[in-house]
């Protein structure tokens, strides 16, 4: 009877430890995946995200050195930006490549899409990867975390005609 009780207690302990280990491993895997989705897999660093208010200030100041701004989304909305078309399409990515090919590597370049949040945007990643592969050193992604309406138009930042 005592032997049975000891065996049962031992069994309970083992089950608890195994359950605990399983939950711990599952949580680590989940956390690692989340981290990878949010940061590691994005081809840009937090320093490469350009605040809309900062570039709006530059675009509104004709005496300020102007960056070259490419729209790699559906429609050029930012004032003075060059419409490339959605970078998810190979023909548009090639178009961007042709625009970039003769530029000095230190050129100040900004790209943006703004269709939807970065996590769902099919255009920002191919464009940023292209800039990286072409070894540009001063390129940024316009930080439009929700979309260009909420983060640019609604804020009254300068728009193309």
């Amino acid at each position: 009877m005592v032997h049975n009780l000891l065996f049962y207690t031992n069994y309970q302990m083992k089950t608890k430890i195994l359950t605990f280990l399983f939950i711990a491993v599952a949580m680590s895997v989940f956390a690692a995946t989340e981290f990878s989705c949010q940061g590691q897999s994005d081809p840009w660093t937090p320093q490469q995200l350009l605040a809309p208010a900062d570039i709006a200030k530059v675009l509104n100041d004709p005496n300020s050195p102007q960056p070259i701004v490419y729209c790699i989304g559906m429609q050029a909305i930012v004032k003075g930006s060059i419409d490339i078309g959605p970078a998810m399409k190979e023909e548009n990515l090639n178009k961007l490549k042709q625009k970039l090919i003769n530029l000095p590597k230190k050129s100040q370049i900004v790209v943006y899409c703004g269709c939807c949040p970065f996590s769902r945007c099919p255009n920002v990643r191919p464009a940023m990867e292209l800039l990286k592969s072409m070894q540009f050193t001063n390129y940024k992604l316009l930080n439009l975390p929700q979309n260009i309406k909420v983060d640019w138009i609604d804020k009254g930042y300068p728009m193309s005609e």
Partner: protein
Amino acid sequence: MRIFALAFALLLLGGSTYTLTAQPTGLERGNMAPEIKLPSLKGDTIALSALKGKFVLIDFWGTWCAPCVEEQSELARLYKKYKQTSFTNGTGFEIYGVAMEAKKPNWEIFVAKNNISWIQVSDLKFWRSPVAKTYNIQELPFNVLIDGKGVIVAKNLHGPDLEKEIGRYLRK
């Protein structure tokens, strides 16, 4: 003189009754949905108000918006199921699809390829469309359900929640 006084009183009465019954235009449940008048794929202008009498889902979407594209098959199912249905405040179900597109070809190809048979309109102004401002759209997909009088009964419902809401207004 008496006739004028009577007419004036009637006018006042009519005015106050109208004030009591008319819904204000707005974006809240119980408000009259703001008017939309946009060109269809054929180029003719279709007004939302022309659908008065029907139960209408205003679907704001775009071919570039993955969740919107995913939702179209569900909308096709609802359209087929409820098109001829009688509601407590409207007869027949219509979808008024507002495509937040920048260029016509993408939209045209998608609609043809997916046999979308409900109303499709767009001003091809993408996020700059005045409708996005009027309806205070923050992201896509976004939708508004209106009854036969054009009054908003629900906003931004998707999947089973949308059908459940439509079901609440079926005439029994």
